Structures are given as C-alpha cells and as structure tokens.
C-alpha cells in the first residue's frame, strides 16, 4: 500500500479506499459504500461514547471520499463543523475541506461555520488564518461575504500579517468581490493594496496583481497609481538575470506568471502619460521582444512556453496600446515565424495574435509584410487541427478586412482550405465567406463562381439566406445571368451534387435556361433531363421548386411541353403523398393544358428584379449580433417566438392573400371543363394563385421582401387540400344540409380528449371508433379507427367531417381520405385526417358517420376531438419572464377566470399530467405557492399565434380550484378556460 506509509495517514480511510478500488463491479462498490455509510451513521448517532477528534476526522474524510465518488451525502455536516473548533491542524483542515466541498445552505450551520471562521481569523495563528481564508475563498457565498467583507481588507493591509496570510487574504477578497461586489467596501485600504506591488515577497505581489486587475476594471481611477509601480516591478523582473529571483525562476525564465499578470494589468489602462514611466515600459517591452530572438537557454518545452507566454502577453499589450513602437514590426515577426513552427499549440496562438494584430489599425503595415508568409502558411501546411483551421479562417477574415490585403486571394484561399478536410466549415464561417465574397466582389461572375464553389464544398452549411442571395443577385444583374446558367449547368453535371446546388440550379435554369439553350450541349431537353435526374434524390421542398422550374420550362421551351406534362401526369406526382407536391403537379398540369401560350407567358414571366436592399445574409449576421442573441441564430428565432407570446403576430402577407385565391381555385377546379371558356376570368384568378410563383403580387409587398421571396419559392398552398380532395368525386359527397346534430353525449366524449390524444372516442353495440392523433405546431394528423362490432357487413359506410356554423375552412382545414364503403363484420378500417389550424377556433368539427346495417340506415354525428389546445406549443420561461408577460396581458378581456368545484380527486400528479396533456408547459418555481400550477404555451395557427399563460390554484380544503387564463385573444381565453375547467 503506497503513500500511506507517511505515518500521519488514517488507516481506516486507507483500508476503505483500497476496498473500493478492489471492487470488481459497480454493484459491489455501491454495496461497500452503503455499508460504510451505515457504519458512519451509527457512529455519529452513538450517544454512549463521544467520538474523539481522530475518529471524527476519519469518518468525515470517508464521507468526503464517498461524495467525490459521486454519491450524495446528506449528513455529517455537524461533525465537520465540530472539527473546525479543534486545535489540531489536521482535524481543522479536514473540517474546512468538507465544508468547502459540500457547502450546505442550512442557516444554522452557516452561523456555526462563520463563527468558527471568525475565531480562526482572530487567532493570529497564520496557518489557521490561511485555512479560514481558503475556506471563504472556496465557498465565496454571499453569507460569508456579508460576514467577512469588512475584516479581510484589514487583514490584507495589516502590518503584522504574515506573507502567506496576505496572499490568501488578497485572493479571498478577490473572490468575494467577484461574487458580490456590493459587499466589499472601498476605503483607505485600496491605496495600501496598490503598494503591495512593492512587497518584498513575490507571492504577495502575484496575489495582489490579480486582485488589483479585477478591482481596477471597475474603478480605474482609484488605482491609477498602480501603473508606475507595475511598470517598475515589471522592469525589475524583465531585466533581472535568470538567477536573481531564485525561487521564482521557472526554467530560466524569471517569474513568468507574475510578468504575464503585470502585463495584463497594464492592459487595463491607456499608455502611461508620464514620460519616464513610459520610457521604462517601452524599454521593458523591447527587452521582451529581443529576448524572444535570443537562442533558448534550455531545450525544454517549459522554458519556451514560459518565454512565449510573456511574449504573447507583451504583444497583446502592444496591440492594446494600438501604436507602432519601434518593436511593433518585430511583434508581427514573432508570430509570423511561429506560423511555420511545428508545434500545434504555438501555431494556434500565433494565428490568434495575428488576428488581433491584423484587426488593429496601426499594425497593418507590419502585417502586410507578412501576408505572404501567412498565405503560404495557410496554403502549404493546412493545419490538421480543426481549431487551428478555425483560427486560420478568422485570420484570413481579418486580413481581408484590411485594405492592403487582396481579398480575392484570401477568399480563394478559404475555399481551397475548406476543400481538403471536408465539412470543416461551420455555418457562421460560410456566412462570413459569403459576405466577404459579396462585399469585395469586383465582378459578379467571380461572385457567382465563389458562392457556387462554396455550395459545392460546404453545401450542408450553406443556409437559405446565402443561396437566396445568389439568386437575387443573379436575377438583378442581367449581365451574369447567362454565365450563371452556364455555370450551374456545369456544376449540376457532377455525379453527386449538393441539394442546395440543385435548388440554385433549378431556379436559375428555370429563369434563364433559355440563355444557354442555343448550345446543343445544353439544349432544353438536356437541361430538363439533367434536372430531373436529381429530382428523386431531393427533399420535398426542392422537388416543389423543381416542379416550378418545369412549368417555367414549358413556357421557355415549348418543345419540352410534352415530356414535362408526362412527368407531371405521372402517378407519382399527381397522387403524391405530399400535399404540396400533389397540388403543384395538379395545378401546373392544368395550367399547362388549359391556358393559352399568352397566358402562360404572362404567368410564367421572368422574375422581375428584386428591389435593391440590404443583403439577406448581412441581415442574418446582424440578427446574430443583435442584443441578447449573441451567438446562435436559433436564439434569434427563439426571441422572435417569445415576443409572439405577447400578442398575435400580424399574419404574414402571404397568408392573408391566399384564402381568396384558393377559393377561386376551388371554383375553377370543381368544374374543370366549363372553366376553359371562361379563360380570361379563370386565368385572372389563376394568375393570383400562381403568383405564389409569379411576380404579380409580390414586389414591394410585406415588411421584409425576404419573406416575399420565400413565399415565392414555396407557394403557401396548403389551404386548399380539402377542396382538392373533395374534388375527385364530387358526386359522392352527400350534400352538407342533412347532417344530424351531434349526439347528446358528444360533448362529454369530447371532453375526454381535451387532455389526451388517443383513446376510444365512441362505442355502441354496432360500432367502435378509436382515435389516435398527434399534433405539431399548427398541424395535426388523426387516425380514426372504425371497428365493426357485429358479424354483418356495413354498407355504404361514409364517415365525413363537417364544420358546423362558422367553423369555416378559414379556421380549420381538415383533409380526409375516403375509406372503403364496405366494412366487413369484425373488421376495422382506418381513416387518416390531416388537420391544419388556420386561425383560432372555438367549436370542434363534427364527424358524421353513416352506413347501412342490415338494410337499415344508421347515422351518427360526433364531435371530432380537435380543440384549440391541441395546437398548443409548450413554452418554457423563467419566473421573471412569466410575470412580465402576465402583466402585459392585463386587459380585463384578456383574462378569463373560473372558480369551480373539483369533480375528481385532487392529486397533484394527476393535475400535472392533465396540464401537460392540455399542451402547456409546466413552469416550476414560478408561483411562490408550490401548490399552484403555472403553465405557458403558444397556440400555433397558420395565421397567428396566441400566447397563453395559465395558473391553476387548487384549494384542497374547499375542494375547489381557481383557474385563470390570460391570452392575447379574448375568445381564446374564455374557451380555453371552459375546456380546462371541465377537466378537474
């Protein structure tokens, strides 16, 4: 058994530790630990004989070890506190250690601990004082701050404090200051702290520098005097021979850490004004730079590391002063030469400091001389380390920002750079490259090339904004259109190309394919088959875009019409499972066969130039930099949605404009052949509709043209599927007039489903209807299972969904699949419903089931379990946010409140489950009363979002609940309140 042989070890502890090390399995370890815990517990509880200090120390130490192994310790604090008052160092030490590691917020304990610390601080025994100070520094809690913030400065500057105590006190104070700055009083001690920089003891100086650096960031003026002291201290260190400082020399480097800290301290201030001080400092800096050129005194990596640590800090100080002292050029040279160094760490740091150097204005000249080195270094030894690469990119970026560098070369470099180690680009990088390219593009064909390259190399990371932007630029510049078409055409010929490339390609060829059609190698059929060869590999969004391209081809190249119509007509399009694709296929097919060439030409005209405006990528970048959304784009989005909770968002233009066109479409489609003669009118409507595809309604519409652009690419079609589906066999639809009203139980049945999605909706002797449903955002899918409980076949089985009263298609779109008209005895048929919530609604749709059983017509109308809360999206938020929002929704009509008697037993868990099932997020620790439930969520509809906050206060004595709902829409508040009130 090693190491314990030092005599002072605790045998019991050593035995225990080796026992645990010998455990073969996790279970055995846990068993051993539990045994030990039981043992310790009984020892601590044993009243018969008091434990002596040694055993207490031993057991507390064991507990600590168990804790460090990752188990919870919930006792022993008292014993540890007892140890604090021991006079033996080791016992005290273990006590403090336990307290520091397992801080417990029990106020009684804290009082005892603070007492013990106070005693130790007053003890004048430096060892004990240090222990106490270390404990405060390690815990750093507010309570301790309150108790000791006044004492510690006194200890720190007291003339008779030992050096080690001063060190600890300085850092302890630093910790308290960082934790709660308000508690540390500024006073006359601050002046004396500064003089600690002159202390004989280097350790004290080290600790004091840390403290002062932190303090002077808040109160620069109070500590101004430290500059000259720091400079003189620094110059003494720097100019000392490597043997002068004995203890503090580390691998021949005098006091490296202290130097680094002093340099950092100086970075808090502008250059010294006093000429003498300034001269001395410049001298220091030059010495450091010169030393860097000297041959190393030792081959050890420690030596060079320590030296370079100082060097880099010096460079950052120089950069901070932002001027070119005589050594500035050398400053560039240092990192420059490191770039060729083979040590990865060094290269990384060199890149980093080059970055800062390059971004400071004055050192451009210095960097310029090295630009070739940099570019070479980037080119020749593509660093294998990803973080190094990141820095390279960063550096290139910084370089390209400077006017002296040639952004051309840099961007090209970046591209070469990404090509080799594939996928090393991250999203922000791509974004930045794209921006660079745009900003410095002298010539648009170069820009198009660059971006296409970018897509090729790092397609996965190219966000929508980037490729939208290319399209905008291409559309707006007729001089590059031909070139772009040619380039994408070539790019698409690669056997595997990224989906984003297909999107760009599809769009550009659709718009400008005609410009390259003259070349037999890229004749229209070739273009088409090239695009279509990618079709099957693409996602739905891309396919949709490609379909638009095809219809544009029909316009551009009439000769391809037959082929394309064939493609559109193919079953895989017309009966595509995806509504969007299906709709496009159907519409485009009709459009191509119905409309005359003139109409086609108008509808499918080339896109007009986009209004000149800020680049969407720049906008994205800005959004990223926006307040609060520091890093990720996601944050930005989240921000947006959390704002939404305060009130309905204005519907986006695209959604507003669509209901009417889709109604028109319905009219057109319901009677396809007769519509042809009415071509002018019909085409007019079509025009509006396809304007999801065409320019007519788009330019200048909406707050951000980006959105218009978006909607241009993805027609907001989903409103009409219902119409579409009703269409194939209109005759089969019974007139809506003769549906019976829902059966009396319907309401009750519906209530069962408010908080759950699956279950049996209805059952009688003949029929059982089961429901399975899932909802996401404003969309839902519901499976209805109709089970025939008899042994006789149901005939003319027709389940239909109808909207009662004002529940129009404008509020809720339900798309049903028809089911077989016969249901055999004992069999079950399934029906799928796709549901989209367009606006908030109150009444659920009705499900009417009609069939013939043994010749007798049966009819049944139920309420479909689709309630507004199904479109709830839970929102997590902090208490503060919650109350802020709560207050914002303080208009009387926004609130709905209900007090009602519990109809079910009041079980907190059940209630929780119900609220979660209802769809809201449950927020813990928001309401001061833990009994109460608080929830938040957003109702997602296509047109708007409604933020909802709810609070449920159970009163167990009275068996009552009070439910309060606040939403941004009055009817929603009331409706939700009613729905939910029936659940408890």
């Amino acid at each position, binding site marked *: *058994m*090693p*190491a*314990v042989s*030092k005599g*002072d*070890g605790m045998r019991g502890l*050593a035995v225990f*530790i*080796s026992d645990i*090390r010998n455990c073969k399995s996790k279970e055995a370890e846990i068993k051993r630990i539990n045994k030990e815990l039981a043992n310790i517990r009984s020892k601590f509880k044993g009243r018969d004989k008091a434990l002596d200090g040694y055993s207490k120390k031993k057991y507390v*130490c064991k507990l*600590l*070890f168990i804790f*460090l192994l990752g188990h919870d310790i919930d006792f022993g604090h008292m014993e540890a506190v007892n140890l604090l008052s021991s006079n*033996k*160092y*080791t016992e005290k*030490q*273990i006590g403090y*250690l336990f307290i520091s590691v397992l801080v417990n917020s029990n106020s009684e304990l804290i009082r005892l601990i603070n007492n013990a610390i106070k005693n130790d601080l007053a003890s004048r025994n430096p*060892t004990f004082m240090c222990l106490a100070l*270390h404990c405060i*520094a*390690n815990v*750093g809690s507010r309570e301790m701050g309150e108790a000791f913030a006044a004492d510690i400065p006194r200890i720190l500057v007291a003339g008779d404090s030992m050096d*080690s105590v001063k*060190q*600890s006190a300085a*850092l*302890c104070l*630093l*910790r308290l200051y*960082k934790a709660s700055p308000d508690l540390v009083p500024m006073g006359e001690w601050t002046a004396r702290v500064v003089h600690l920089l002159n202390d004989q003891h*280097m*350790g004290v100086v*080290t*600790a004091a520098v*840390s403290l002062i650096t932190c303090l002077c960031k808040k109160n620069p003026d109070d500590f101004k005097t430290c500059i000259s002291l720091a400079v003189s201290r620094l110059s003494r260190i720097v100019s000392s021979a490597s043997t002068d400082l*004995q*203890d*503090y020399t*580390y691998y021949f480097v005098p*006091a*490296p*850490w*202290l130097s*680094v*800290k002093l340099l*950092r301290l100086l970075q808090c201030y502008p250059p010294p004004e006093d000429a003498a001080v300034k001269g001395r400092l410049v001298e220091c800096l030059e010495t450091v730079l010169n030393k860097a050129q000297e041959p190393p005194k030792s081959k050890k990596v*420690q030596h060079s*590391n*320590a030296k*370079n*640590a100082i060097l*880099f*800090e010096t460079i950052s100080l120089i950069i901070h002063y932002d001027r070119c002292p005589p050594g500035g050029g050398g400053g560039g040279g240092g990192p420059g030469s490191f770039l060729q160094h083979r040590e990865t*760490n060094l290269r990384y*740091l060199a890149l980093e400091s080059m970055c800062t150097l390059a971004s400071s204005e004055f050192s451009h000249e210095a960097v310029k001389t090295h630009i070739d080195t940099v570019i070479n270094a980037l080119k020749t030894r593509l660093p294998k380390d990803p*973080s190094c690469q990141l820095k390279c990119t960063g550096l290139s970026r910084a370089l390209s920002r400077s006017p002296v560098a040639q952004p051309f070369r840099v961007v090209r470099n970046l591209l070469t750079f990404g090509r080799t180690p594939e996928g090393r680009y991250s999203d922000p990088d791509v974004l930045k490259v794209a921006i660079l390219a745009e900003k410095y593009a002298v010539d648009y064909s170069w820009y198009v090339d660059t971006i296409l390259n970018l897509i090729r190399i790092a397609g996965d990371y190219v966000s929508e904004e980037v490729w939208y932007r290319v399209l905008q630029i291409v559309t707006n510049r007729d001089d590059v259109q031909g070139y772009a078409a040619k380039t994408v055409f070539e790019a698409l010929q690669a056997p595997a190309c990224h989906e984003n490339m297909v999107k760009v390609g599809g769009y550009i060829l659709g718009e400008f394919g005609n410009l390259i059609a003259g070349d037999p190698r890229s004749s229209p059929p070739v273009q088409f088959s090239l695009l279509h060869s990618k079709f099957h590999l693409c996602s739905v969004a891309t396919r949709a875009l490609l379909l638009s391209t095809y219809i544009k081809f029909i316009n551009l190249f009439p000769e391809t019409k037959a082929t394309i119509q064939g493609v559109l007509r193919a079953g895989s399009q017309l009966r595509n499972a995806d509504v969007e694709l299906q709709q496009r296929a159907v519409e485009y097919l009709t459009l191509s066969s119905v409309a005359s060439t003139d109409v086609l030409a108008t509808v499918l005209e080339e896109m007009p130039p986009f209004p000149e405006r800020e680049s969407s990528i720049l906008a994205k970048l800005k959004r990223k930099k926006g307040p609060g959304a520091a890093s990720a784009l996601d944050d930005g989005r989240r921000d947006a949605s959390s704002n939404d909770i305060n009130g309905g968002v204005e519907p986006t233009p695209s959604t507003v404009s669509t209901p009417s066109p889709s109604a028109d479409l319905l009219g057109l489609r319901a009677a396809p052949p007769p519509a042809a003669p009415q071509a002018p009118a019909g085409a007019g409507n079509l025009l509006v509709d396809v304007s999801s595809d065409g320019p007519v309604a788009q330019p200048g519409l909406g707050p951000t043209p980006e959105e218009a652009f978006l909607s241009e690419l993805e027609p907001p079609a989903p409103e009409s599927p219902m119409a579409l589906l009703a269409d194939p066999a209109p005759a089969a639809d019974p007139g809506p007039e003769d549906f019976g009203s829902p059966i009396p139980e319907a309401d009750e049945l519906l209530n069962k489903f408010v908080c759950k999605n699956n279950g049996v909706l209805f059952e009688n002797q003949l029929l059982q209807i089961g429901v399975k449903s899932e909802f996401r955002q404003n969309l839902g899918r519901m499976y209805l299972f109709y089970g025939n409980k008899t042994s006789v076949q149901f005939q003319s089985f027709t389940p239909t969904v109808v909207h009662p009263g004002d529940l129009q298609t404008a509020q809720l779109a339900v798309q049903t699949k028809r089911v077989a008209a016969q249901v055999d005895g004992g069999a079950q048929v399934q029906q799928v419903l796709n549901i989209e919530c367009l606006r908030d609604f109150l009444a659920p749709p009705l499900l009417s089931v009609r069939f013939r059983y043994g010749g007798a017509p049966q009819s049944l109308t139920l309420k479909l379990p689709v309630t507004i809360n199904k479109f709830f999206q839970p929102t997590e938020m902090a208490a503060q946010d919650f109350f802020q929002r709560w207050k914002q929704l303080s208009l009387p009509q926004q609130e709905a409140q209900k007090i009602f008697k519990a109809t079910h037993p009041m079980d907190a868990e059940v209630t929780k489950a119900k609220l979660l099932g209802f769809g809201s997020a449950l927020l813990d620790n928001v309401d001061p009363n833990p009994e109460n439930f608080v929830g938040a969520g957003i109702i997602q509809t296509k047109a708007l979002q409604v933020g909802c906050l709810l609070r449920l206060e159970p009163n167990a004595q009275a068996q009552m609940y009070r439910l309060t709902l606040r939403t941004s829409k009055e009817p929603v508040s009331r409706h939700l309140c009613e729905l939910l009130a029936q659940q408890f």
Partner: protein
Amino acid sequence: QFRNFKIIYRRYAGLYFCICVDVNDNNLAYLEAIHNFVEVLNEYFHNVCELDLVFNFYKVYTVVDEMFLAGEIRETSQTKVLKQLLMLQSLE
C-alpha cells in the same frame, strides 16, 4: 479547447490536469501553471503516481489551495510551496 470558457489541459501518463480559464486568458501561462503544480506534487509525494493522489486526496486539496486560490494563481515558487506544505505536515 473551447466552450464558454476554455479548458487548458495537459496529460501526464494516464492523468489529465485541466484548468478552465476565461477565453482571453494567457494559454501558455496556464499550461505552465499546470506543470508547475505537477512538479510540486511530484516533489511532495516523491515521484507522484495516481494512487498517491487517490489515497491522499485531502492533501492534494491542500496543495491546490496553496498554489491556486479563488481562481487565481497564489504562489508560483516551488520551494516556498513545499516549505509551507512540510510545515503543515509536521503540525499534525
């Protein structure tokens, strides 16, 4: 090496010593601080090995407290630290 802070680490045989520092702190300085710390451990335990650290975990805490405190470097002189540690050990 990154996160919200950066982690500077050094490997000694099977053990990793990690320090988490602010992003703009001096990397090399802390890298060497780790080494300094390990040299002290080595001196203190006479050829330190993993077992020493496990069995004497409470002493390791003392060493850490001597050298680093409140997230800052407290003492960098190996001789001073060792002198203090031996003094503490003799106290019992």
